[in-house]
């Protein structure tokens, strides 16, 4: 098992050296990247919107519940705590974990299907660097669009929290907005999350692509690869979250 793990790391590294090469034709690369942005990014907006609004609402309710016991704590603290939770962890990490499921399985299954139906062999026979042609646009699309999704998620999470707080009578909407602005630090509350989102985007794109690109067998193996892509991406996100949190906040 340990040997397999290190072999896998090595194969992943070798694959990435094939991926990060100059594209044979920039025109085709741009076209593929735009298509991937649509498929992996724009098509994920819906789930990110729903998830972020309700996540913000839930965090506000939970925080209000925890702080309501102490009458000395001002209510805008609910908004401050919600902001910290949303911008530091929930938006960058939880949304990326969800996207690892949606986007990761998409990347892995599409590449896996191309592998078992000999489409990747067809590219190789033509002399195309298939790893570069197929995987690089997916990674670039992820790197470009994931931070935008995370920014949107932060905004919608905070908005959802303020709305839920107001509707349930926990904290007035305007007070939430004031709470969000209190001791707001751009690096801590925005840049930190964006740095994480870029790293997670690379993990989702590359790890899922590795799982799909290296499939051997048929439909069953494509399914297994898809599951592996999600599991590996989630594990890598959690591990890198630990490292990044330590590096960026300490």
């Amino acid at each position, binding site marked *: 098992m340990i040997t397999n793990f290190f072999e896998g790391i090595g194969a992943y590294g070798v694959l990435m050296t094939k991926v990060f090469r100059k594209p*044979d*034709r920039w*025109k*085709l690369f741009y076209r593929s990247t735009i298509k991937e942005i649509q498929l992996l990014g724009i098509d994920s907006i819906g789930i990110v919107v729903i998830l972020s609004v309700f996540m913000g609402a839930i965090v506000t309710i939970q925080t209000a519940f925890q702080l309501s016991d102490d009458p000395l704590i001002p209510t805008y603290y609910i908004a401050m705590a919600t902001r910290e939770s949303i911008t530091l962890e929930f938006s960058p990490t939880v949304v990326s974990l969800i996207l690892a499921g949606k986007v990761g399985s998409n990347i892995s299954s599409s590449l896996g*299907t*191309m592998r078992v*139906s*000999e*489409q990747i*062999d*067809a590219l*190789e*026979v*033509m*002399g*195309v660097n298939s790893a570069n042609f197929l995987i690089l646009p997916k990674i670039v699309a992820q790197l470009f669009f994931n931070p935008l999704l995370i920014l949107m998620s932060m905004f919608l999470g905070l908005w959802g929290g303020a709305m839920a707080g107001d509707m349930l009578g926990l904290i007035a909407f305007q007070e939430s907005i004031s709470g969000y602005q209190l001791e707001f630090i751009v690096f801590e509350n925005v840049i930190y999350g964006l740095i994480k989102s870029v790293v997670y985007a690379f993990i989702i794109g590359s790890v899922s692509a590795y799982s799909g690109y290296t499939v051997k067998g048929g439909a069953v193996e494509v399914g297994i690869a898809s599951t592996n892509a999600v599991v590996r991406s989630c594990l890598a996100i959690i591990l890198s979250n630990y490292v990044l949190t330590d590096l960026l906040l300490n």
Partner: protein
Amino acid sequence: MIQVKGIHKSFEDNHVLKGVDVDFHRGETNLIIGSSGSGKTVFLKTILGLHQPDQGQIIYDGEVLSEMSKQRAKKLRQEIGMLFQGGALFDSMTVAQNIRFPLEMFSEMTEHQMDERVKFVMNRVRLEGADSKFPSEISGGMQKRVSIARAISMSPKYLFCDEPNSGLDPETAIVIDQLIHEITHEFGMTTIVNTHDMNSVLEIGDHVIFMKGGLKVWEGNSSEVLKSTNEDVEEYVFKSKLFKQVRQALR
């Protein structure tokens, strides 16, 4: 011309190719036949350079494949057309986009020239009117024709076909065989076809190689194969009732 000299290939303990020597001539349809597990597919993939041989040489028109520079090997790939067993069409692209892909990737043609070339090869394989269809929307026979059109769009010098008739009805199979044979002669290509289909052997086999256990055990042409006295060839060729009757009739 493609020359194969003493090719050996193993996968761990499995010695698949055990020293194959054969010459494939230009303008001929060369057929490789043999039972499953005889090493045909590995042989084809080794000639293509998808597998590295453990021993031996593959020579494309005087140039040894393993001694080519990376750039030359890449250039050679653009001189190769390949027809895969399942077609291997890009399912996210339409028929016309599939055929156009190699041109966009490697040629310096203008948009208009590419359109003209796509139109020409589509007409050549009788695919008129299918441009905007996706591979999933067309029949197996049409998929094979699209695959042939894509393979010849760059005017290759070498054409490789892996089981081109698998999954096709006998009538369509003959159409595909004849198409491969015609374009081989028309464009002067060196064509190598991997097949199980005896009809193909008799129909288009300018040069037939029979493989068994990783070795070439017989070599001839379509008219010689029915008269072969080689036991392995006889056993393979006359396995079916139809060919048993053919043998009786020949005798």
